[in-house]
């Protein structure tokens, strides 16, 4: 029995019935996604978290509707058009190859939907990216198997929790001391990898007080799964200030200040800049860049270390002097990012130190 092509192929009643049911289901799904209380399961800790949730609701709603139609028709066609026992063994379906109009629409409509989705995503993405930049600057450093934080005016590092005041925009600079970690606070709906040798930043404005887990999402070693113990605490200004002072006292004597005047002042005369340049290339480029301070590799960038007043004060508030740099070269220094070897470990003679200081002096 061969299906003749003469009589036109039309959508039968059953098809429209199924379509009606599926449309109802799709509308129900859309309503469900817009009603679903996401923040009961995952609090919206920062302002943009709400936008990410709206994007998720939009995509989930349209995605569910699309999926209901596809899976629905799949099921309906499978049941309605199964080969019944009464059909002769060589029965065939209607031999339609394609339908220009239908194919046109199911190319154009998804393209339009993709354009709308792009516009919505880009708009929300801009809101995340264009958070104010003049807020509190905090630095989170990924180490193998915990995060440490650096606050302006707190020497050294805050090691246990990260505290943030409500409503104050924050610029969080992320970097790592050893391997790539992923700094993620689910309640913020935001994450970024902390890449060693690279400073990336995310900006947000805390909106809801609470204690939110910080989780590492990029495999970073054997105890990667233990890196979800730390917490981001968002609290009102008063308790934040109390916490802040506590850490200032605690770290007052931290290693950030200069070690005692160990090796005695060494003569810095007769430093040869060219030799210094050569030494710097061999010994220092592994951890320091010839670039402004914030271009961290392991140590900070050294451009203008002896001249640029904004270069962080290595000692008591005044720009570094050649003597300070010489003593650091001599006795090493433990910064947040790793320890700098002292002169003997670096194989630097006194003449070498003089050359290096002379060379650093020329960096404007």
């Amino acid at each position: 029995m061969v299906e003749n092509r003469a009589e036109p192929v039309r959508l039968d009643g059953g098809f429209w019935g199924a379509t009606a049911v599926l449309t109802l289901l799709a509308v129900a799904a859309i309503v469900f996604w817009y009603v679903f209380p996401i923040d009961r399961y995952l609090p919206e800790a920062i302002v943009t978290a709400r936008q990410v949730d709206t994007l998720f609701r939009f995509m989930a709603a349209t995605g569910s509707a699309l999926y209901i139609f596809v899976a629905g028709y799949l099921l309906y066609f499978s049941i309605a058009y199964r080969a019944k026992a009464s059909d002769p063994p060589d029965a065939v379906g209607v031999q339609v190859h394609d339908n220009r109009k239908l194919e046109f629409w199911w190319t154009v409509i998804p393209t339009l939907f993709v354009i709308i989705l792009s516009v919505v995503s880009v708009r929300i993405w801009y809101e995340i990216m264009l958070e104010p930049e003049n807020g509190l600057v905090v630095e989170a450093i990924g180490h193998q198997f915990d995060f440490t934080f650096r606050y302006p005016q707190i020497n050294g590092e805050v090691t246990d929790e990260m505290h943030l005041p409500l409503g104050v925009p924050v610029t969080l600079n992320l970097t790592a001391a050893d391997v790539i970690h992923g700094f993620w606070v689910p309640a913020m709906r935001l994450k970024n990898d902390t890449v060693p040798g690279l400073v990336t930043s995310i900006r947000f404005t805390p909106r809801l007080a609470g204690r939110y887990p910080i989780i590492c999402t990029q495999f970073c070693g054997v105890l990667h799964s233990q890196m979800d113990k730390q917490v981001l605490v968002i609290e009102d200004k008063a308790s934040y200030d109390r916490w802040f002072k506590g850490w200032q006292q605690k770290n007052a004597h931290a290693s950030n200040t200069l070690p005692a005047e160990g090796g005695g002042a060494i003569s810095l005369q007769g430093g040869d800049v060219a030799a210094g340049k050569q030494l710097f290339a061999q010994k220092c480029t592994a951890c320091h860049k010839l670039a402004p301070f914030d271009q961290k590799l392991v140590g900070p960038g050294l451009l203008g270390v002896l001249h640029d007043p904004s270069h962080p004060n290595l000692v008591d508030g005044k720009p570094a002097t050649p003597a300070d740099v010489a003593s650091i070269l001599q006795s090493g220094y433990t910064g947040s990012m790793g320890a700098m070897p002292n002169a003997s470990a670096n194989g630097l003679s006194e003449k070498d130190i003089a050359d290096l200081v002379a060379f650093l002096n020329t960096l404007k």
Partner: protein
Amino acid sequence: MSVAAIGADAHDGVDQLYVETRELRLQGFLLFLISDCVLFSSFIFAYLYLRNSGQGWPPPGIQRLDVAFAAWNSVVLFGSGATMHYALENFKHGNFMKYMWFLLATIVLGAGFLGGQAYEYNHLIFGEHVTWWGSGIFGASFFTLTGMHGLHVFFGVCYLSVLVLQSAAGVYTKGKFFGITAGTLYWHFVDVIWVVLFSIFYLI
């Protein structure tokens, strides 16, 4: 697919089977060259990415490469490309002895290029202490890329030597000489890769 289309006149035992298999082998060989080209371009991407993420080029402490010697060495390799082209032309037009001389010239020039490369490596490693692992991203990208290209030239020289022995033994007749065509394609490919490497390492 008429026999003439492939540019070889049909005698010397050339039948339809050889014509078709030759066409397949040619396509396969060209696709192999494309995939090898992707291998090089991936490393070239790595070099350019590292070069622009680093601190200026050449990194502090490493002198700029000697362009004069490299220019001479490149001319040697491009010369071998020209002689290889003429080897194939001569074979196609039947003058066998000229083909053999040009083929030997290609091998000599190719080996000369390898010698020049070895000289430059020697000068860099022992003269200026620029080593593969010791000189940061410069050593990594320079030695990996030029070394890999050098390896390809070495394989090419070995293949061409085998080609000389085979041609002497009369393996290649007027209608059946795909081995030579493949050798010429490979050699030109190695030349073209060096044009790119020469310009990105020495000229920019």
